[in-house]
């Protein structure tokens, strides 16, 4: 069995990885940490920050910096998770793609490779509401979906 874990940088996705590794130990499964980077997110963050701070002339520069930071941050998160579980006897790999979050997740999750998808109940906005991602992808994912908190 292969287990796909959706990593978005939130604490909830780190918890999802914990559950996935535990499951992998019990089922002798392989864990794939999966993240999608969407350039629109960098654009939105740069636009909101620059317009609110009155520095619209620096918009493009901020967008580039935020995009680079997003790439580095998610790589760091995935590497940290892999380091933590090294030595626990679980095969763990990482995959980062760029594109539309919903489309890329559905493409990967429904590729036929995975027996379980694991994600956090909440996103990076905290516990205020259930992950918007769950509403977007929950019904379209074919394998069972474990939502952890």
């Amino acid at each position: 069995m292969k287990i796909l874990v959706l990593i978005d940088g939130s604490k909830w996705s780190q918890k999802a990885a914990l559950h996935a590794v535990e499951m992998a130990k019990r089922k002798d499964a392989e864990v794939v940490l999966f993240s999608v980077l969407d350039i629109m997110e960098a654009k939105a963050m740069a636009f909101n920050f620059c317009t609110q701070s009155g520095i619209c002339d620096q918009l493009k520069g901020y967008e580039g910096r935020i995009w680079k930071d997003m790439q580095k941050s998610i790589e760091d998160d995935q590497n940290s998770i892999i380091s933590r579980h090294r030595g626990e006897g679980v095969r763990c790999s990482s995959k980062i793609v760029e594109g539309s979050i919903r489309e890329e997740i559905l493409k990967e999750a429904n590729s036929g490779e995975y027996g379980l998808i694991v994600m956090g109940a909440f996103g990076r906005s905290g516990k205020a509401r259930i992950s918007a991602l769950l509403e977007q992808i929950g019904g379209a994912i074919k394998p069972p979906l474990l939502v952890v908190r």
Partner: protein
Amino acid sequence: MGYSSSLIQRKFKDIAGRRYDSILKDYREFMLADEEMFIPEIRSILVPLDLFVQDITDEALDVLSAYDATISLAYITDTEVIKLLEQALDSESTKEFQAKKEEYGQKLLKRIAAKLEERGFSTQTRMFVGHKGDDVVRMAKSHDMIALCRRYADGESTDVSVSPVVLRICQRVEIPALIY
């Protein structure tokens, strides 16, 4: 220093400094603390059933088999439907409807319990008239995990979304939820 603390300190090394404890306190919704880095034991799994849940898929059973847990099957008839029928129909017809629903529920519980037991799960079953959301959230407090069919409490819709009741349950329970 634990894994989480080291990760947080690395990310906040430039701005946190001595303020690390206060940041961890104020932003605990965004930072995984070391004490949260454990997986509770899964000993009991709640599986709500209704008219719209025909089965537990083999894929879901494969996942659930990872835990040495008792599966509690609960067939729930919506109390609002019964109330509505009582208002619209005579008492005899309502009783007949309820009896048919109970007969269906018993058959479904028996069939699914047999399938689970065949695969080595220990099971418990119960059936009642209640609220498909609130009662499940209440029952979830005495279980370690919940497994929900995407179609639970949804009706016959053919779209691919998850039932709104399933989403609300996922939001309100404090335990992991398996959606199948």
